[in-house]
């Protein structure tokens, strides 16, 4: 997308048009539900990709921020009647603040042990919400009161409305990533991801950059948390801090293309479509089959295409008509 020439704009405009029209054309609620999942996990993947993909700080604890966002907005709504739209932003701020001590601890470790420390902090947060009932309903969780159609409280009658909300979130995530990719921060992030010691040697303040990008990534992940619990009208620690959220955030980025703008989106489309197909073929009573297939896809990508599947897409894109040298057609 570097040049942003007319073909890129055209493709982007077409993509936006198709995405906006999609829930009007395909109205089956099963299909729209899958679209919402794809957009939501794309967005979480995009948020993860900022710290995990560009800076190569491979977190498997993003459920911590997802859960904090979900709990902040739900507590504000259920206990104080404050709209989840405000709660969503508040949740983002809470997650951002939480990322400071979490980052302070976890960034002391490098490589795989950073990953382990992030898993442990997310699990610890889940245990805290399970254990301390006074904080928020304990293990039983709570249902979010259904107010019927009230857009101001982020509750809609049709699934299409939720679709547009999460589409907006994804657009926000992509825009932020696009902006960062082109800023000095983006270059610093890539430098840190390639070789942190070398980056510091040439004057990059790695600790500060990692802290800042972790804050942005946490903020965005928390927005997804609020959206998700509003969509399913239910929250408990096992849902909000589910380890599979951390897994999927990293997985979609790696399968699609780690450290690229569109990688998480491509990865999510592939994984979620596979999962939906498996479910419709085998029924929902197939514990384990979805993650078995995810694991096989992940292994295949790592062994044969560690830069992710986005390479296949960009290769095709480079073969588009205007990028080819003029050829003389033989008559």
């Amino acid at each position, binding site marked *: 997308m570097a040049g942003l020439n007319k073909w890129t704009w055209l493709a982007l405009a077409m993509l936006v048009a198709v995405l906006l029209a999609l829930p009007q054309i395909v109205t089956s609620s099963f299909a729209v539900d899958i679209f919402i999942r794809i957009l939501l996990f794309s967005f979480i993947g995009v948020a993860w990709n900022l710290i995990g993909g560009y800076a*190569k700080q*491979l977190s*498997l604890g993003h459920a911590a921020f997802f859960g904090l966002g979900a709990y902040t907005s739900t507590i504000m709504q259920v206990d104080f009647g404050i709209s989840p739209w405000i709660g969503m932003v508040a949740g983002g701020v809470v997650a951002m603040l939480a990322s400071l001590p979490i980052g302070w*601890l*976890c960034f*002391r*470790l490098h*490589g*795989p*042990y950073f*990953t*382990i*420390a992030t*898993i*442990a*902090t997310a*699990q*610890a947060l889940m*245990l*805290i919400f*399970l*254990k301390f009932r006074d904080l928020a309903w304990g293990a039983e969780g709570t249902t979010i009161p259904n107010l019927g159609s009230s857009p101001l409280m982020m509750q809609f009658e049709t699934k299409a409305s939720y679709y547009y909300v999460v589409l907006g979130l994804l657009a926000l995530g992509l825009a932020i990533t696009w902006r960062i990719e082109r800023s000095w921060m983006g270059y610093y992030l890539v430098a840190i991801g390639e070789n942190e010691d070398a980056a510091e040697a040439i004057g990059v303040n790695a600790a500060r950059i990692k802290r800042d990008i972790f804050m942005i990534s946490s903020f965005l992940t928390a927005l997804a948390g609020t959206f998700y619990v509003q969509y399913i009208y239910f929250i408990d620690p096992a849902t909000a801090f589910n380890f599979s959220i951390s*897994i999927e955030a*990293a997985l979609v980025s*790696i399968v699609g293309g*780690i450290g690229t703008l569109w990688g998480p989106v491509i990865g999510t489309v592939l994984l979620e479509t596979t999962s939906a197909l498996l479910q419709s073929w085998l029924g929902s009573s*197939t*514990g*384990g*089959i*979805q*993650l*078995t297939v*995810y*694991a*096989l896809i*992940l*292994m295949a990508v*790592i*062994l044969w295409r*560690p830069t992710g599947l986005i390479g296949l897409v960009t290769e095709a894109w480079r073969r588009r008509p205007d990028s080819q040298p003029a050829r003389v057609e033989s008559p």
Partner: protein
Amino acid sequence: MVETVIQAVINGLLIGGIYALVSIGVTLIFGVVKIVNFAQGEFVMIGMYITFFLFSYLGIDPLLSLFVSMPVLFTIGVLVQHFLIRRVLGPNDMPQIFLTFALSLLLLNLSLLLFSANYRTVHTFYSDEAFHFGAFYVPVAKLIAFVVAMGLSGVLWAFLHTTDLGKAMRAASQNRDVATLMGINPNRVFAVAFGAALALAGAAGSLLMPFYSAYPFVGQIFVLMAFVAVVLGTLGNVVGALIASLMMGIAESLGIQFVGADSGLIVVFAMLLLTLAFKPSGLGGGRVR
């Protein structure tokens, strides 16, 4: 009060022996091959299922099935190293972390598909027996597990310090390039290290079976414990991992006793976070031994 504390320490020490087998495996692989095996817990689970099926179909005692689970897991380890891990060794973290992570996901969910989420238990004649020392009791199965675990750890330590292959493994863990220049074949050393680590996981599985249930997610507890112990005991340090595992067993047991039945893990996480905050190089002080 004092009795309760001592009893909790005894219980924690005994389960800590099992944690030690898992964490020594993790630290051995980290020290020699320089990767973190996220799937170590799933190999404990495989060891448990092997033991369970040998008992329920052939009536073989869990302790005898050590002689099956350890060689089987050793072979799996050599194969995993040869066909998977070897292909991602390099300066890049991402493929290494996520390959073993994918392996963990795969094994866990395959066992969920094949064996279902049911809890499987083995009841032996010594499962409910216990020695009584005054006010304290020591369950026989746990004591056997602890003693065998300590014995196996000792055998591994002796292997690393007295045999040529063991010394080659320690050399490779100190400096892979120099070791290669000295004529050590890294692939062979890595395969043995991976195999040995998985054999220890298999042993942990067999030893656990008389007093613990097997289910697909069982490995996750042990691998989490092992990761904390390995950080606490300084990465790559076998003796450090052993001592840290025993400490964690005790801490978990005291947590269960005094904070609440579901609080063992909170104590463990608190230990990890405190270590990271105040002594991130681990209690061993940073030297890899």
